[in-house]
């Protein structure tokens, strides 16, 4: 276990170095980063000014070592728009995003687990149809469109929820539903299929034949197995939702990093974009590491020793 842990941590570190390299070259894809960072109609003088200010005139090797050196100290330069340290701005926005993501995740788990268990344990019934339906819809309805339609129905027509902003528990419901709908579908499919699979196992049949009532069998034997599968995808879904929050936070004016990415991209504020990209990727890398560790702890069959 210790050896496994050690190698996974080294691996995650390497991955982060890779992420830094990608973000460095990402803004240089067109070959002229100064041009990229000014508005399309900027004058040549303005481009030259930017080139000078950002040090794009210097040798690439020097720029690269400076970038990596800064990154090691958590310094990603100044935001062009806010004129403040980029990473600091990102960190200020993180709590709002985590709050929204956790709310979306709770919504998804709260509905998918019962729906998946009901559907999986009663194949061919209305519950099964519902579970399969939500599984499919989660995959096919784009969250940005769902968000707009939720606003039309529940904010504009019914007036139950605010159309945008962050304030109080009521304002988080629509964005959380819109963001959580894709994971809801995925979790439902997963829970349903693993319940179907476990149902045929000897130990479940034994439990039934001993006369244990259904609820207990489902909780003690079936759900325990399902939870192992769930742990492995919750981490992945967290990463997906960081991406999805770009739309949802922009639509609902939620002050998190998703909306910040959109604003930074529109304002061509690429130092800020780089800081967000590094933070998000780092977040996902750490999350995957934690998921693997949790996985090893929950499932006694897994002994990572190679």
């Amino acid at each position: 276990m210790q050896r496994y842990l050690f190698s996974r941590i080294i691996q995650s570190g390497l991955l982060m170095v890779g992420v830094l390299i990608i973000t460095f070259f990402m803004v240089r894809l067109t070959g002229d980063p100064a041009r990229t960072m000014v508005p399309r109609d900027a004058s040549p003088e303005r481009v030259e000014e930017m080139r000078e200010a950002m040090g794009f005139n210097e040798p690439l090797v020097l720029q690269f070592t400076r970038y990596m050196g800064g990154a090691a100290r958590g310094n990603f330069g100044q935001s062009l728009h806010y004129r403040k340290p980029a990473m600091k701005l990102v960190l200020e926005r993180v709590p709002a995003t985590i709050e929204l993501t956790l709310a979306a995740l709770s919504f998804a788990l709260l509905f998918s687990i019962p729906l998946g268990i009901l559907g999986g344990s009663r194949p061919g019934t209305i519950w099964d149809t519902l579970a399969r339906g939500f599984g499919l819809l989660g995959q096919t309805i784009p969250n940005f469109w769902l968000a707009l339609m939720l606003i039309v129905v529940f904010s504009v027509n019914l007036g139950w929820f605010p159309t945008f902003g962050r304030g109080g528990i009521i304002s988080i419901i629509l964005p959380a539903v819109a963001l959580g709908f894709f994971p809801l579908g995925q979790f439902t499919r997963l829970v349903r299929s693993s319940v179907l699979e476990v149902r045929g196992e000897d130990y479940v049949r034994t439990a039934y034949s001993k006369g244990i009532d259904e609820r207990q069998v489902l909780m003690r034997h079936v759900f325990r197995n399902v939870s192992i599968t769930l742990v492995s995808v919750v981490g992945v879904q967290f990463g997906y939702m960081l991406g999805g929050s770009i739309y949802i936070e922009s639509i609902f004016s939620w002050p998190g990093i998703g909306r910040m990415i959109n604003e930074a991209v529109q304002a061509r504020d690429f130092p800020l974009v780089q800081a967000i990209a590094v933070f998000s990727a780092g977040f996902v890398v750490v999350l995957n590491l934690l998921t693997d560790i949790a996985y090893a702890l929950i499932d006694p069959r897994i002994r990572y020793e190679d």
Partner: protein
Amino acid sequence: MRIDALDQENVRSPFQRILRVIFKDKAGLFGAVLFATVLFSAVFAPYIVPHNPVAQSLDASRQPPAWQEGGSWEHPFGTDNLGRDMISRIIYGSRVSLTVGFFGVAIAMSLGMLLGLIAGYVGGRVDNIIMGVANLFLAIPYLLLVVVVAAVIGRSLINVILIFGFTNAPLFVRITRGEVLRIRKSGYVESAVSIGARPGRVVFHHILPNLIGPLLTVATFEMSGMIFYEAGLGFLGLSVPPSIPSWGNMLAAGRQYIQFSPWIAAFPGLAIVVTSLGMNLLGDWLRDILDPKMRRSAS
């Protein structure tokens, strides 16, 4: 094999069997019909649209759909903020979506297959390097990567196709490599190698044909994913130029009028749902036919 012949299904001709599978799976058939409809409207767009999709008419702007008060059958789905006919724009929009989906998947699949074959077949350090880079790209939140690259290289159809082609390749690399490793261990590949088949022959005659099934299934889901993401990019104003009617661009425009003219955003979204539903059902069905081992636990 002969023993299996007792089974009624195997007595029929292959063609009859395929027909049977098609009609047995109602959901798959439904998916195929949906997808065929979208494909039809993309191919024959110029002949079936009732109006010019880019013709503006400011005195006919924001007309509601025909079945709502104030709507007319002149514009069945209503008009947008510039008075352009919604249904004609949606029909034309399918061209952008399918083009991006098709070429994006074609690039991602060829690139991914090539690198995956090399990684899986050559192994060793080459494998480590290829997989290291692939996993690196899979570690960055996908949408973030796509949005940033799109913002850097600018709006055009070619750029969007290239972005999806390259960013989806790592997934195909991973799947191809996994399959290659699995197939390599199988008896028939070992036999082929042991009777002296050269690597080229092994790859093209034994490994590639076995890859088609799983990859084609993934390709369907990925294509639906790309259609999804293209619309998303358009929604953020990062996909094809605003002058081209695409579902994402229409959604972006519709968002501003969501309060009083919700249909401008509703219909392009529905078009995405229909396309994506069709492709997902089709993908499930393909998986059932092409890969009996991966059958859905549903049936």
